[in-house]
Structures are given as C-alpha cells and as structure tokens.
C-alpha cells in the first residue's frame, strides 16, 4: 500500500498542472478535489461564445456530455461549462493563462458553479482541467498545455504521444479523488507552478 501511494504521489507530481495565468496561488490536489462540486469525465460536444448582458465580457460556453462522475457526488448527463474569454464578431477577449475549452475535447474537469448562474466553471483554473489521451491502449490524463494567450498550435496536443509526458491513468486519478474527498490526504502534494 505504501509503495502504491508513493507511485501515485510520484505520478501526480509529474503530472502536476503548471499554474499559469495571470497569477495564481498554489493549491494542492486535495484542495482542488475537495472544493469542487463535480469532478467529471466528458466530451465537449459543442462550444459557442457570447457577450455578457452588460457587453463587457465574452464568455465561451461548452456543452459537456458527461460519461463519469468521480467521487461520491453524481449529477446530470449534460452540463454547461462557461469560461471567460472567446471571440465574437472578430473581437477576441482572453484572460491570460485561464483554461481554454474546445469543441471535441475529451476531458476530466473539476467543476464549481458560478455564483450568478446555474452554469459551471473549471475550478482552480488550469489545475482543474486534464485532457484524456490514449497511450498503449489505456486512457490517461495529461495536463492541457494550451491556455488562453498561449500558442494555438495543435502540435502541443500531439506532443503528449510523441514525447511520452507523464500521465495518470483514470483509475489512479479516481483513487486520488476518493482519498482526497474522504479526507485522507494524498501526501500533502503541492502542485508545481509553471
């Protein structure tokens, strides 16, 4: 058990999502996992962008078809995730370093609800988003390297397979979530910052 924990800790450290942004405070995996309302695996089936009512902020909305809820909480089959930033009529707004959400992505997301609506947002910014990739026949989770304001080249996505960056299997991730939400610290891991 101790050895397995060490392996999981090592994997999570290697996988740690680089914090970027504007500037963020460090959050541990446990904090992110326990603070999130939902932790889901899903497929982004659609996205669209629109100004808010006051025409000050462009938001991108994503319809997420949920295939799995992690932890003890479950919810609806479909969720609407809303993130700051997007393009409307040729004008683009970006919150530098915030997560971007793109149609067709297979993702695992930590979600919390916006205070002013029923929509959800990615909790803890890019720490709350993983891409699901296939490696040697297994689904694995990798950090999304392309955030708002970053290079928009798809090559970044292919780099995962090409260079074999560290990844976590779905089962290992689920175990980490269960431990964190049950109050069993996952070794007090501190997420690295980029």
């Amino acid at each position, binding site marked *: 058990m101790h050895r397995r924990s060490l392996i999981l800790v090592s994997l999570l450290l290697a996988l740690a999502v*680089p*914090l*970027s942004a504007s*500037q*963020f405070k460090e959050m541990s995996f446990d904090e992110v996992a326990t603070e999130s309302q939902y932790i889901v695996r899903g497929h982004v089936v659609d996205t669209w962008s629109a100004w808010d009512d006051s025409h000050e902020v462009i938001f991108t909305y994503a319809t997420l078809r949920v295939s799995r809820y992690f932890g003890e909480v479950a919810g609806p089959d479909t969720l609407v995730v809303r993130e700051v930033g997007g393009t409307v009529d*040729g004008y*683009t*707004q970006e919150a530098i370093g915030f997560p971007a959400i793109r149609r067709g992505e297979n993702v695992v997301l930590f979600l919390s609800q916006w205070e002013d609506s029923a929509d959800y947002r990615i909790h803890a910014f890019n720490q709350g988003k993983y891409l699901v990739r296939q490696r040697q026949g297994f689904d694995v989770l990798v950090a999304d390297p392309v955030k708002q*304001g970053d290079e928009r080249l798809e090559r970044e996505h292919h780099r995962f397979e090409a260079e074999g960056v560290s990844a976590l299997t779905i089962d290992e991730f689920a175990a980490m979530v269960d431990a964190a939400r049950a109050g069993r610290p996952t070794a007090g891991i501190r997420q690295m*910052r980029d």
Partner: protein
Amino acid sequence: MKKQTFFSVLISTIIIVASAEPALAYVLLSPRRRWATTPITVRTYTVGNSTITDGSGGVNATVSAIRAWGIINSSTTSSPAVRGSAPATIMLNTNGGICTSGCLAATLTGYYISQSGDDRIYDADVYTNTAHQYYSSGESGCSGEYDINGIMVHEVGHVIGIGHSNVAGATMYPSVSACNAGNRTIEADDRAARDNLY
C-alpha cells in the same frame, strides 16, 4: 590528447559556459499582438485594496511599480475599468467577476485579428482577487501576503503582450509565493520580450 591540451580545452569550456548569457525563453502572447503606440497608457483605479495598509491601498505603489517596463505612461484614474475599451486599467479593489478562488490577479485582453498578422491590442484590464492578502513597497514586513508591486509588474507584462517565461527569476515567470518581492524589477528575459514587441 596531451594532458596540457586537455586542461586548456577544459578551462576554455568552463570559461565559455560560465560567461554565456542565460538562455532567453520569453513567450509572447499568441497570436502576437501589441499596442499601436508607446508609451502605453495604464491607469490604476484610485480605489485601492483594503488589505494593503500603505495609505493608498496599494494604488501609489502600483502606479510607480509598473513603470519598471520603461514604456508605460502610468497614473491614477477615478474611472473604473471599461472592458473592451482603452485605456488599460488596473483594478485593485475587485476581482471583476473572473479572478476568484486561487487566482491572485488576472489580465483580460481584447484584440482583433488582422489580415496583415500585425495584431493590435485594443484593451487590457487587470483585476485583483480581494479574497487574498497583499502588501506593497509602502509597508514594512510581510506575513503570508502577496507583493502587489511584483504582481502588477507581472500583469502589465501581459497587458503589453507578453506571455509566461520559462526562465526562473524572470518577472514573467508565472510562479509567485507569499512575501516574494522579486518581481518588482524586470530581468533580461523580460526586456528581450518587451524589445521584441516595441
């Protein structure tokens, strides 16, 4: 190889490596974009941050700090940020509805994609998460607070079109820890990014 030659090569290599400039690894926002003219006007809203006890809520410290970039026309304003409209405005008293939870400060930029590839920034506003504690250069001591001077120098780097650098020690390196005032000055990597754009 003779022993004397070997040591000559070794010493030369050590000298070359030791005197080499550190690798520059700045990253510009993508697509590449910049303001049309310099100096770039950045205003700091006169309502400061309630956690900063320097007498102005960090406003005066911020106005001074962001001049570190050398291309900023910095002053205060009594008008809050209007998103989608210049000038760039720093808000120390609100998260703008976007910078919550673990976010310390966030920069929201707006631009049009041009056909020529020379994109212009039309607006950029900075918001501060008031749920965290900050201190400024106008205060003495620090206890678990975040340096508003350094944070705003970093954010204004985004305002002018710079992304995050991989060079540890650069102001545009995205990590920051409490009581770290190291971002109050810009470093070689940051200057290279600025000079690339302007």
